[in-house]
């Protein structure tokens, strides 16, 4: 069965650079969620989209922005990268809002040097 696809899987950037992470949800899923997991930490909710509109926002820095496109894929844009942004970034998708089941992708490991 098709799963959530994230690209790239690994990304190395320098401080103050920008990064773009992409997420392709499971086919027919219209809701996308982004989570950040720091080293040894639990995943933290960043932002979510339903039908191309932002549906909720968590602890996402102002330097980050995201959007969902007409094909339901989503991109997380990160600017003025800081060392503390080094983390695993997971995307999850679900069918419809308020669906209890979220399916997680394999994550993008971002390293900021």
């Amino acid at each position, binding site marked *: 069965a098709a799963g959530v696809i994230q690209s790239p899987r690994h990304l190395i950037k320098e401080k103050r650079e920008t990064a773009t992470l992409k997420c392709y949800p499971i086919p027919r899923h219209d809701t996308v969620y982004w989570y950040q997991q720091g080293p040894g930490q639990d995943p933290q909710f960043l932002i979510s989209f339903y039908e191309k509109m932002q549906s909720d926002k968590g602890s996402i820095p102002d330097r980050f922005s995201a959007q969902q496109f007409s094909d339901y894929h989503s991109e997380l844009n990160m600017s003025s990268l800081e060392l503390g942004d080094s983390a695993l970034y997971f995307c999850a998708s679900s069918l419809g809002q308020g669906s209890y*089941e979220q399916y997680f992708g394999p994550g993008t490991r971002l390293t900021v040097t």
Partner: protein
Amino acid sequence: GESVGLHLPTLSVQEGDNSIINCAYSNSASDYFIWYKQESGKGPQFIIDIRSNMDKRQGQRVTVLLNKTVKHLSLQIAATQPGDSAVYFCAENLDDKIIFGKGTRLHILP
């Protein structure tokens, strides 16, 4: 603040024994809980879930118990295998967001 959490950061279990991973939550209004398994370098993988109108749910080799009185849930893994080695998170779905607890790393001893 955090809504869910786990008691132990690590748990070591002999291969073949049963594993019990515990979790406490603070929000009495929470109505849906999920256990995730996360292997190194991978995303959280759904194991089993339970709604607040139940106190027990069984899957293949896993059982989740929910005690709403003391706001506690547990994950039981029967006949633990080397492939069960991972970090286990209890979580709740709150307003369409997954709120994760701190995670317990399960070590399997040969």
